[in-house]
């Protein structure tokens, strides 16, 4: 259900109408609109927003780890409509080991951002054309941006010297 403030927000209202149960939570804070979307329909919602509401640009995809909360991950999408000059934030909440649908089919630019989320958080994206590590070395173990990954890593310790 949409809160009162967002009932005339064009994008939020249209998504609510098209996908009645897709919006799990919605809020408007500090002038920014956030919609929490059901992970099962994220790719459909994105393509609907792109085609019918003019969100032709994907600014970024990233992730926030809320460990030890369950579900721990929030995948965050920032969309921009060039024509109406608006920014929209979508979120998907997933637990560990859950796959998320890739949005590379909607915006090709999501490719590297999803690879980065995979690399640093270990979230796998379904239907991604090339899901490999991007920033860390290919043989790296673990996902360094997770909150339970120590800041100095596992491998190196000063005691070994």
């Amino acid at each position: 259900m949409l809160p009162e403030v967002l009932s005339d927000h064009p994008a939020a209202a249209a998504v609510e109408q098209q996908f009645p149960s897709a919006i799990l939570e919605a809020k408007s804070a500090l002038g920014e609109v956030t919609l929490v979307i059901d992970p099962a329909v994220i790719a459909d919602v994105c393509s609907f927003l792109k085609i019918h509401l003019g969100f032709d640009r994907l600014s970024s995809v990233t992730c926030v780890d809320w460990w030890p909360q369950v579900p721990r991950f929030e995948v965050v999408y920032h969309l921009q409509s060039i024509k109406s000059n608006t920014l929209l934030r979508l979120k998907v909440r997933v637990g560990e080991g859950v796959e998320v649908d890739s949005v590379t089919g909607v915006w090709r630019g999501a490719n590297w951002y999803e690879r980065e989320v995979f690399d640093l958080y270990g979230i796998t994206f379904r239907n991604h054309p090339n899901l490999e590590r991007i920033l860390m070395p290919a043989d790296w173990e673990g996902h360094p941006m997770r909150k339970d990954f120590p800041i100095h890593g596992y491998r190196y310790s000063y005691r070994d010297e």
Partner: protein
Amino acid sequence: MKTENITHFEELDAEHELQMPAVLGHEHAPAPASTRRMTLNMGPQHPSTHGVLRIMLELEGETIISARPDIGFLHTGIEKECEGKHYHQVTPLTDRVDYLANLSNNLCYALAVEKLLQIEIPPLAQWMRVMLVELTRLNSHLVWLGTHALDLGGMSAYFYCFREREEILKIFEMFSGQRMMTSYIRIGGLALEPPRGWDKAVSKFIGTFDSKIDEYETLLTANPIWMQRTKGVGVVPLDELIAVGVTGPMLRAAGLTIDARKDTPYSSYDKFNFEVPTYTTGDVFARFKVRVDEMRQSTSIVRQAVAGMPEGDWKADAPHVVLPDREKMKTQMESLIYHFKIVTEGFRVPPGEVYQVVESPRGELAYYVVSDGTAKPHRVFMRTPSFGNLQSLSVMLEGRLIADSIASLGSMDFVLGDVDR
């Protein structure tokens, strides 16, 4: 045994034949039918990549069939490091993200945290920020222009550009004591009071800078070699650029007027008079023209800032966030307490999230700061322009000549620290 071996070889050969490409009828360089594909490893230390970028090129004669960038050599885990530091301690890290546009990064981070804290920045600090960020833009574009021209064989432009860049770095040193990693824009205002005589130094530089831009243009714009190397090179259709996530001067060179300073004005940019230069051809030459015109616009913004600099304080009235004056600490107990608390335990930021977009010299720079109510950010994500722009590398290089790849790479103006973070 023997026959097995022979069949084995035949199979290998057959596989090999399959892998051999059908010769593409490319208009620039039709490769002879006998040419085999060659894999060329460009980088990570190739001088024209301006950092450590590795590109795996597959060539057929002189034509690039596929270009796969390999990034991450400069990944330093800045975002991870931010999560373990107090809000003020993150500012010096933001300098190191894009080392040619450090003040833009400072500004973006400061604006994001100020939005979470809901504190008001005095006009003097806002205008001073605009002036410094525009000088940063000049600095970044000068380094780009010098090295880009050097890559394409025009050595003199390099010396001209770095001559002026030196003056900008001297101005930064005058303000902050540092030439590159200034950390001058802090949460709640500026790091130090603007130095005495700053307006004279800036006016002196900016007074002659327009004629300096004319000098660069005399060297390059109508130079036949420069035009041959850049016109019609590296063209990618506008919708494709938008689809792969390109921002900034590359989009403006392809005909889209998009600029965060105009679209979502921050730090009182709406009080300045400037234009967003746009070209339509979308080639390397158009990107060069866009950036040169941007330098002229930035010069005008700096001039307006110096002329109309408001009076007032240079930091916000928020004692729990902004470090107190040194003099007050010697006489006032409260200032000493605040200073101690800010330095030892930082300040708490109300829970929430902000996606702050600014226009860096390279394009859309955004900081996504998530606060959980403690004194350390829960997450700082940097949407850096170079990362988005570099995704267009494959579409820009594939099917083109290898000699043009240097021009195309240079025109993207990426900073590898900005890509890898």
